[in-house]
């Protein structure tokens, strides 16, 4: 995928080229492109004078970073302890069945990416699903399909 490299430059230029800004820059790049495009990673490595291997090491280590373009909708199912004791495992299973993908994967039609996350801090309302920043709380496995239906685009 072709990316506009000037956007990456604009992000890098906000701070000095010191190593400490690497994670900050990668986060900003991901905000811009929704993932870390290869070209952007190469550009960061060159401009910050950090071996590309080290940049990839950081991008692989921190779970927030995505190296593949995500789907149109990001589905996060919480499996924090409070959600777990209330049965989030069944939600994760149901979501995976409906989308026909494993956690951290994207559907073939690029519509959905499924993330299983550790805790969203809404423990009193577990089980929690977040789709594109919208929170669904106290979700039962039976409700998963109707929630998902809202995001299935017409004509697909």
């Amino acid at each position, binding site marked *: 995928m072709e990316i506009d490299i000037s956007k990456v430059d604009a992000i890098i230029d906000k701070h000095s080229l010191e190593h400490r*800004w690497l994670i900050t820059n990668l986060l900003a790049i991901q905000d811009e492109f929704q993932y870390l495009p290869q070209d952007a990673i190469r550009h960061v490595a060159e401009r910050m004078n950090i071996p590309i291997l080290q940049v990839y090491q950081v991008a692989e280590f*921190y*779970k927030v970073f995505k190296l593949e373009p995500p789907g149109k909708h990001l589905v996060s199912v919480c499996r924090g302890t409070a959600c777990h004791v209330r049965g989030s495992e069944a939600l994760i299973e149901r979501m995976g069945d409906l989308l026909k993908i494993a956690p951290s994967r994207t559907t073939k039609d690029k519509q959905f990416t499924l993330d299983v996350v550790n805790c969203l801090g809404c423990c009193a*309302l577990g089980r929690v699903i977040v789709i594109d920043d919208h*929170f669904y709380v106290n979700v039962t496995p039976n409700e998963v399909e109707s929630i998902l239906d809202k995001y299935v685009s017409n004509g697909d």
Partner: protein
Amino acid sequence: MAEGNTIAESDVERWREKLLAARDASRPRITVCGGTVCLALASGEVGAALEQALEQQGMHASVEMKTTGCPGLCDQGPLVTIYPQGIFYTKVKPEYCSEIISQTVKNGEIIEHLLYEDPLTGEKIIHITDVPFYKEQTRILLKDSGLIDPYKIEDYIAVGGFRALEKALTEMTPEQIIAEIKRSGLRGRGGGGFPTGVKWELCRTAPGDPKYIICNADEGNPGCFQDRGVIESNPHSLLEGMIIGAYAIGANEGFIYIRHEYPLVVKIIRQAILQARENNLLGENILGSGFNFDIEIQLGAGAYVCGEETALIASIEGRIGEPQARPPYPVTKGLWGKPTTINNVKTWAWIPPIINNGADWFTQIGTEKSKGTTIFSLVGKVKQPGLVEIPMGVTLRHLIERIGGGAPNGKKLIAAQTGGPSGGCIPESLWHLPVDYDSLREAGSIMGSGGMIIMDESICMVEMARYFLDFSKFESCGKCSACREGVRRMYEILDYITRGFGQEGDIELLEELGQAVKIGSLCGLGQTAPNPVLSTIRYFREQYEAHIRDKHCPAGVCKDLVSLDAVKEN
């Protein structure tokens, strides 16, 4: 530092007087919770509907609307409180708002169906101050939650904010501040429990310049939201604590390391920093004292291990979050090799009240070795989950049954899990124990940073141990083989047991492996990862035996071991 000291008789005090003079305490005020959870429950729409109703009923000018942080009663949201009476409405929807204005705000009439119901007695409660969940707490750190707008520094000033900073900068030397904190006996709220004053002193006297301070707000423990609660309700108290700490330690630069999963918290703290800078509470020559200090935010990128201090430092430096061997501790060799003090959000937030009220006041709260209050995220199988602040020394039973309201559906409660993946399960038979660092440690768990998950008989302890080990296995950074391989092996054994492939000797093997992992790991993650297994073996050994010998899951959770007559209902 004190020379030419003309600060402050005083800037902040004058500002406060001006703010208070402009306020009319009898003027009706409506507060709406704008914390993460209430926003998830559409409290934003409720706020808008209230504004609209005020406008329509011509009361817009006479009533003050305020969006506050999280008051902690999360499952009852969105929460709306009407002052000066303090009428407390729960689960408010936009369609009720017109009624709230016309009946309650205008005429003082109570709308019955919006009142909070005491889960213990079923009684409807009108005033927020009568709600047992709040009445039974000792709210000091959370004192202003639900009252002030976290986006407005003026609100914090009005309730006495930055008075402690002014006192520290004008009346106290750094050494005096450290002596006061040492005398208070404050221990680190991140879970380690190290004496804060001692840490500060070690850092201040360590050779090397510059020095740094860090606030650890990487609340990665699943099932915890107390740091989120503190920042969302009062971000300025954290900043005030950090500024005082920096002055005492001799640091001019500070960092707040905060998890990116909390976007609202990040937004709130950014705004608070900007406002503090605008008002000369951060930056050059703070309040004319000659002291310079500023704070930067570093976002975490989703790595639990970065809650460990050496990993957190590596992350701020832009590297992967692998822990380092200690010593040297960060107080002598931390960020960029310089002396660095790392404290949890709540530890920093404790500084202003201690400076304001003195160490003697603080030592009166809590137990002999654990002073002050502590905040728990009380969740799981309780009637009233939420954010709870209690003095150290309150018994677990009081916390769980009186404040949490006990079991929600008649099932027997069997354990309280504290400390998340690093902690253990405390069985119901030990709930007479007081909540403090040492009692919980003796019981095989830890205080942790404040997560408490209550479990009833519908929860399988073996599966719970498997869950936590799965978490630690995933989050292990992989540096130490004891943790990388040992935790994985332990997880596999547990997984086999829950699927009916357990063998005689597995329990002993888990115990042996657990000890090995503890000894062989560099950082807290590995050293504590076996705790959930070891503590459940200690207290719920019969559950393990049932899984292994009888291929039976007593709670009916493990799918492969459920007999037809024990199908679980939830």
